[in-house]
């Protein structure tokens, strides 16, 4: 049953050192505010799970919070590489990072399997792809009817998932719209789920009947954080801050510049700052 909590409490109650955690969002609705709160609280030894680890995972890895990364595309989308991640993988700085690497199809199927309570996902994939050689969590089974070889990966079941969504209603049901990505699956696959939202509305009675709504009994905690997805975006609220993604490439290129940026923009910042960061990006409406 969803409880409405301040973000600091929602994070401290649901994330612990050593957890496997998914801050999900497929370009859209990335839970940056929750990730920054986790960084301020200084968790260690995390297994970070995400299809598209981008800036927030680059930041967590750069801060030495991650023991392992499970992922399928580790880039700053449209910009380039993740330089803190590279530093960890190539140089072990600030610490060595174990990686479990998949394709998008595999990760999407693995989240789906987690949401569906399955032990594994079965799909047609990895044919001729070398990841199957280096990742022991990629196996193959035979279709019992055709004999076709199919790929299998373990279901993803994070200890906790964080998502950002547009709206909660007063009972704690959560609405996700636009590029819905993998958020519903991440929430349903996880043992605990925390949602940050742009706003709270009375109910969803006036909404279309087939929208992506997570019932309140699938969510552990909700925090209201307007702008909480910046520099990604919230469909219907504010646009993507593409300039910030371009800027990140320079920030992350240098260890000292990175630490300085983190001090100023994360450690000395507050949850409330997100609202102001999206002010100029607001969608006319």
């Amino acid at each position, binding site marked *: 049953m969803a409880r409405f909590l301040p973000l600091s409490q929602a994070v401290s109650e649901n994330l612990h050192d050593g957890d496997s955690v998914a801050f999900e969002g497929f370009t859209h609705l990335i839970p940056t505010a929750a990730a920054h709160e986790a960084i301020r609280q200084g968790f260690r030894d995390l297994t970070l799970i995400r299809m598209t680890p981008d800036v927030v995972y680059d930041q967590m890895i750069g801060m030495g919070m991650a023991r392992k990364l499970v992922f399928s595309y580790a880039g700053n989308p449209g910009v380039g590489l993740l330089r803190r991640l590279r530093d960890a993988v190539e140089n072990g700085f600030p610490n060595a990072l174990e990686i479990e690497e998949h394709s998008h199809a595999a990760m999407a199927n693995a989240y789906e399997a987690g949401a569906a309570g399955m032990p594994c996902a079965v799909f047609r994939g990895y*044919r001729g792809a070398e990841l199957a050689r280096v990742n022991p969590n990629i196996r193959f089974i035979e279709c019992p009817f055709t004999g076709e070889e199919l790929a299998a990966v373990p279901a993803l079941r994070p200890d906790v998932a964080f998502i950002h969504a547009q709206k909660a209603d007063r009972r704690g049901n959560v609405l996700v719209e636009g590029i819905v990505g993998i958020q519903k699956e991440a929430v349903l696959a996880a043992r605990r789920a925390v949602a940050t939202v742009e706003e709270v509305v009375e109910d969803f009675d006036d909404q279309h009947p087939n929208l992506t709504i997570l019932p309140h009994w699938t969510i552990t905690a909700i925090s209201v954080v307007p702008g909480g997805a910046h520099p990604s975006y919230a469909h219907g609220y504010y646009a993507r801050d593409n300039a910030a993604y371009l800027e990140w490439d320079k920030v992350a290129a240098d260890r000292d510049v990175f630490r300085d940026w983190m001090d100023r923009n994360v450690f000395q910042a507050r949850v409330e700052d997100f609202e102001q960061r999206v002010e100029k990006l607001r969608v006319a409406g």
Partner: protein
Amino acid sequence: MTGADFTPNEMMTIAASRALGNDDVCFVGIGAPSAACNIARLTHAPDITLIYESGTIGTAPDVLPLSIGDGELCDTALTTVPVPEMFRYWLQGGRITIGFLGAAQIDRFGNINTTVVGEYEHPRVRLPGGGGAPEIASSSQEVYVTLAQSRRAMVEKIDFFTSFGHGEGGDHRQRLGIDTRGPTLLITDLAIWRPDPQTKEFTVVSLHPGVRREMVQETCGWTVRFAERVEETPPPTEQELSILRDLKARTEAAHKGR
């Protein structure tokens, strides 16, 4: 160069766009593929269906997305579906006529590496990884690849098989049980390449205006084969060029603006 007023990169994008038709259902990779697909849509193929892995089906962005999940893609799409559905119903379901990929490294058989330079366990450069590419390469009915030529990108032997092209050539795909056609077209900034029907080795079938064979060889890490008859790629038309440049200008302004 012949002095024509277009860049090799513009020629590449426009040549790639011409390979797409109105009835194609394209799974669009970000970067060069995205530009080519949208130029096709804005010129000769207004009804082409563009799909991005973020779940947007039938999108028609006014500016090129920076990421595969920009708001513009959803705003203009026919519908936007969850990512598991995208990979299961739309890609794995065999509905994609053309998967359009870029590449960090490619070999003569269209195998692609976007994972690591060097050894996987101790990479010299850790690249982003495959993302959607491994299954785009095997589940799309055919695959087009586009990249700017360089000896760093076009290599004798790729460091990692992120996405399977024609493997070691010949019938290697079929031997692995892969029933799709694989890479059927490579468009670079210098030439258009097609796989040899037997060996599946990429072969230059058309040189862009002003490009000489030596230029293609100098920027390619393997010994280049040329088709018996090599065409000259028609230069960009006024219309193609102005549409491409307008799109790029709109895009640059949009990505910089806060």
